[in-house]
């Protein structure tokens, strides 16, 4: 699908806007529920980064595979995992998309080829390479999209995986969500070469820098890259420049960045900028926005109700699934 701004239709614009509002609403609701102690553990919210998951997922089909990080609520929702199943997982309920065994950082849906939810920084990249290897060996025209943050670039697994994917010409789309901080460590304090996209050249991988705050730019870049990945069976690295508006997790006083910096990025909020663009095109009315928000709230309320009323996994099933229950 071509998503250039010139071709932006009302229908498509509203779909992207709705998808981002849905993720934003989900994250804000999670924040509240965490305060109410309904959700426990680590909780990493993606406010500000919604355009990447939403823009990218428009370009993937059911045959493609997704590997994500521990800040993956947006990817899971954009991929189509039902919101109530995701919310139930955050509650730790049996009806959760990982049966309450994964939690916020480990969302899975095999039927949608959503392979997690990886909470060791960089640990998902080799797995994505292997899924792509299987896709190539079976001559599928599918790709594996691997999302990771700027922190992962410091891990050996990033370099090993880019090398292997390039060496074996595997259909991996590496999507780096560069939000400038690995937890509290600024990129330039961790990288001798802070230009992440430049690192791809060392592995002869094509790369591009994308405005990760612009959902249309994300979709256009992913559309172009995905075409190359599929047709030429080569990896590509897209560096999405983005920013998280909230803290790293629920336990972060944000001593490492200033208020002015946060406010400057908030002016580029992908939801605000897309809304403004649609208004300027004359295809977004205030009533549309209100309707999208009502839909979102209704879905959220239903998801919370579903999670609240879902059963707990019986403790007698504690040790299930440590080993596979069905031989394949």
């Amino acid at each position: 699908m071509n998503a250039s701004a010139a071709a932006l239709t009302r229908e498509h614009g509203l779909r992207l806007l709705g998808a981002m509002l849905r993720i934003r609403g989900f994250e804000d609701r999670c924040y509240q529920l965490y305060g109410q102690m309904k959700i426990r553990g680590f909780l990493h919210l993606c406010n500000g980064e919604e355009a990447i998951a939403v823009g990218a997922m428009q370009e993937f089909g059911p045959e493609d595979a997704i590997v994500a990080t521990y800040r993956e609520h947006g990817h899971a929702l954009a991929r189509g995992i039902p919101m109530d199943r995701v919310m139930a997982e955050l509650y730790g309920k049996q009806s959760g998309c990982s049966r309450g065994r994964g939690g916020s950082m480990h969302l899975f849906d095999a039927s949608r080829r959503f392979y997690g939810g990886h909470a060791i920084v960089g640990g998902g990249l080799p797995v994505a390479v292997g899924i792509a290897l299987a896709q190539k060996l079976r001559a599928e025209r599918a790709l594996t999209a691997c999302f990771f943050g700027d922190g992962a670039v410091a891990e050996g697994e990033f370099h090993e995986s880019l090398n292997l994917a390039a060496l074996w010409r595997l259909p991996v789309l590496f999507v780096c969500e560069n939000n400038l901080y690995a937890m509290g460590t600024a990129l330039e304090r961790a990288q001798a070469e802070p230009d992440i996209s430049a690192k791809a050249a060392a592995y002869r991988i094509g790369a591009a820098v994308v405005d990760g705050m612009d959902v249309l730019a994300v979709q256009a870049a992913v559309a172009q890259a995905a075409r190359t990945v599929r047709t030429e069976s080569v990896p590509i690295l897209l560096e999405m420049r983005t920013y998280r508006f909230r803290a790293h997790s629920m336990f972060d006083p944000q001593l490492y960045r200033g208020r002015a910096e946060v406010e400057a990025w908030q002016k580029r909020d992908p939801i605000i900028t897309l809304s403004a663009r649609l208004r300027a095109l004359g295809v977004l009315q205030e009533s549309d926005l209100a309707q999208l928000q009502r839909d979102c709230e209704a879905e959220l309320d239903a998801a919370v109700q579903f999670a609240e009323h879902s059963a707990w996994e019986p403790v007698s099933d504690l040790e299930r699934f440590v080993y596979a229950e069905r031989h394949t």
Partner: protein
Amino acid sequence: MPSGTPESAVSLSYRDAVRAALHQALSEDPRVFLMGEDVGRYGGSYAVSKGLLETFGPERIRDTPLSESAFVGAGIGAALAGLRPIVEIMTVNFSLLALDQIVNNAATLSHMSGGQLNVPLVIRLATGAGRQLGAQHSHSLEGWYAHVPGLRIAVPSTLDDARFMLAAALALPDPVLLFEHLYLYNMEGTLTEGLARVDLEHAAIRRSGRDLTLISYGWSLHKCLAAARSLAAEGIEAEVLDLRTLRPLDDAAIMASVRHTRRVLIVDEGWRSGSLAAEIAMRITEQAFYELDAPVTRLCTAEVPIPYARHLEEAALPSAAGIVAAARALLRPAGGS
């Protein structure tokens, strides 16, 4: 091997047996492929995969860069996506570079996904000391891996198991680590006639006896068998139990032998502290304490990084002579009859 000749009629090495197992797996299942460092053109660091590249081609006999984490993780991903990868990590020592993938991913993904995913991956690793390779090439870390739920740990210690354990591992839907002791690759012999498969659930009695049980696996198993022959000459009949799988442990077989002989010596090439021997001893204490005629004993590797010099390395590792001495002490305690 000439066609028509029964496999059991030909003398072969442990290395040949593993190669035959790989050949069979690759021939029978198009989803199976082998990858690792120098498995292809070089023929395998221990020459296990020699010749397979010519037969199966570079797509299925896949040389990797020295990127243990990436190619083990790639094995996990390929297994998740429906293939049946066999990953060779040249030695267990290098597996430490892939520990994240093995422990954080292979072992967890089935449970953490609520049973949606499974990782039918086989990892083969050379393990152990005895070749004067120094501290960084002589680890025995299979006991470490056996600590981790979600993994299956197996050790082929006989030619039959070297020949048939791989197929059993590939038939399982879970990640299986097969530890091949580097000292055994040159072991020669013949396969048991008529044997076509083995399981990955049961320990096996390799020698029957009434006076004590020697519990072991890997190279140490063969030291136990040698010790048992020496002990027989002095009238002590040792039973030798080959654990075969370290996770899950075959408690039933262990306890059956313990109840039969009432005395136990565990021989484990791992370091003593926190060892597999400690785990087995505790299980015997929990399940068969009142059947024992003597405290459970063990012989492990001295708690040093394995040294290079031959006499020091030998002194660090369990030996047949040490097993004989420990067995005698168990049967005839000092101050006893």
